[in-house]
């Protein structure tokens, strides 16, 4: 059985006047020890999907209107708040994008890591044991345990993200959701942090959802990839399907075209034309058609289905023709 199973998830944001369709019916599964990459532009619905798994959408504005999230057989959307709390941090942990703001400025980092342990102290460990555990975890992420008495502002960005990672790993969760964990960091630090996460993931037998807009990060860490566009998964498959296969959704091709490569001697990068559609007024038919270089008449009116070939699924009319 898979660890995480998301079915037909639909999420809207509303502020009374406008309704934003942030996530429009997405499906994916994640097995134990697997890493799934959620790829897409800003506004594609990546973070919204992640927050909905932990049920942390903004209370007043964000609403899950359809679908189910099953974690280890537990229907997360049906749990009450208290049950949900026992899962957050303990079995599913999340790392947020900006380490600068995700730590409480008036508590020491030690206190903040300790809190995670105290909250899910099932084995009734003593205070000393917890303190020892804090030291262990800090060592694990490469921070001198003596620094636990420091406040967040005394750490650099990369170090802060290490603290955040330490905090999320404190209770050895089965699933770690990392929301662009390296975007806010310097390029050199990015690689360090990614390597460390990969190593820790192996060590702790975790599954991971890696949210990113960087295909490089995906190539480095993921077993499976889902490409999100305007709240839909437009392409879904294994690492091989993406990086070895040549058949791709035009949008994914566009994403590949936007990465500089040393091997190709392309004259210039080929970016994707246009912008993400306004989520309050999504286009008819295929949502990508206004930007698609291979757009056909059919795409403007008819929603493409998922065309599945083995593990690889693509939401595009181009592949319907191929099938016939």
């Amino acid at each position, binding site marked *: 059985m898979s660890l995480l199973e998301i079915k037909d998830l639909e999420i809207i944001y509303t502020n009374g006047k406008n309704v934003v369709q942030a996530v429009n019916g997405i499906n994916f599964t994640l097995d134990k020890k697997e890493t799934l990459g959620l790829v897409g532009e800003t*506004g594609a619905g990546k973070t919204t999907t992640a927050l909905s798994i932990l049920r942390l959408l903004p209370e*007043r504005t964000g609403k899950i209107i359809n679908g189910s999230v099953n974690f280890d057989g537990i229907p997360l959307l049906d749990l009450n708040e208290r049950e949900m709390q026992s899962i957050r941090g303990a079995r599913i942990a999340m790392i947020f994008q900006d380490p600068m703001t995700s730590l409480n400025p008036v508590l020491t980092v030690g206190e903040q890591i300790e809190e995670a342990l105290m909250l899910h102290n099932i084995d009734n460990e003593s205070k000393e044991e917890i303190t020892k555990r804090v030291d262990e975890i800090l060592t694990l992420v490469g921070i001198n345990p003596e620094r636990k008495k420091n406040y967040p502002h005394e750490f650099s960005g990369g170090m802060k993200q290490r603290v955040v990672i330490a905090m999320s790993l404190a209770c050895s969760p089965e699933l770690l959701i990392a929301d662009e964990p390296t975007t806010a960091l310097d390029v050199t630090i990015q690689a360090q942090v990614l390597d460390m996460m990969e190593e820790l993931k192996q060590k702790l037998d975790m599954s991971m959802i890696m949210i990113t807009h960087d295909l490089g990060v995906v190539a480095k860490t993921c077993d499976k990839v889902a490409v999100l566009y305007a709240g839909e998964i437009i392409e879904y498959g294994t690492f091989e399907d993406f990086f070895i296969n040549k058949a791709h959704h035009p949008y994914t091709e566009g994403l590949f075209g936007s990465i500089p490569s040393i091997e190709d001697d392309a004259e210039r990068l080929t970016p994707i034309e246009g912008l993400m559609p306004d989520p309050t007024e999504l286009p008819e038919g295929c949502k990508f058609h206004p930007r698609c270089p291979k757009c056909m008449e059919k795409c403007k009116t008819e929603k493409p289905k998922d065309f599945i070939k083995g593990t690889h699924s693509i939401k595009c009319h181009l592949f319907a023709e191929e099938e016939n």
Partner: protein
Amino acid sequence: MKKKKVVLNNKQSQIADVWFRLRKNKTAMVGLFIIIIILFFALFADFIADYDTKVIEQNPVERLQGPSFKHIFGTDAYGRDLFARIVHGARYSLSFGVVCTIISLIGGGILGATSAFFGGKVDNIIMRILDAFMCIPAMLLSLSLVSALGPGLENIMIAISISSIPGFARVIRSVVLTVVREEYIEAARACGVSTTRTIILHVLPNAIGPIIVNATMNVAGLIMAAAGLSFIGMGIQPPSPEWGAMLSEAQIYMRLYPHLVFVPGLAIVITALSFNLLGDGLSEALDPRMKD
């Protein structure tokens, strides 16, 4: 998904948006409605009741009457119709509140914007002087100014305006500073847009929101401050129908004729409240973020 608001140069729809949210805010609309009524009374006061015969002329036969059909708010110790006096008093309160706010807004705007835009020494000097002004309790500052300038409508208005200039200057300075630091301003400057043009076209429109909110609430504050001055006896002098002065006159009759104290006070409260309600609604309408 992050919903960062993209600032497009789309003023029309932005104003429409704010108006839409404001209209949904019932309390703010009540405030606006009352302000319009008060404004109506102030503008047409002379048609509602003649100033010389109804508001000023004493009529001992009818003194100290309770509310009746003829005098809906009753009459004061000199037999004058309280309703007529309240209606004419609205002129004082609105001019103190609105005109003085506009004066201090202009004064504060010039000082604050200069300070923020030039920074460095200019900023330092202006801000230190304003700091000093802000250390002096507002009431004391206006009292000293009135006693120095002498009584009279203009002098009172100057005194009240000066006491709220430093506050505005600070707000405007900080608003302009945050806006100036925004990237679209840098972009405008990088494109070679001149300084004045940058301020007028790019800084002001984006800074206007918080300033309007502040100004609206300031109107309420100044109405109360002006009434306070008159109540102490350092503002508008009786028999002029200023609400604070009326209260001060009525104090000695409070035990037997509480309506004399109640009505002018309520007039102040309702006027101040309506501006506060509007200001509060505006701040929510301009900052929808608070709704999350």
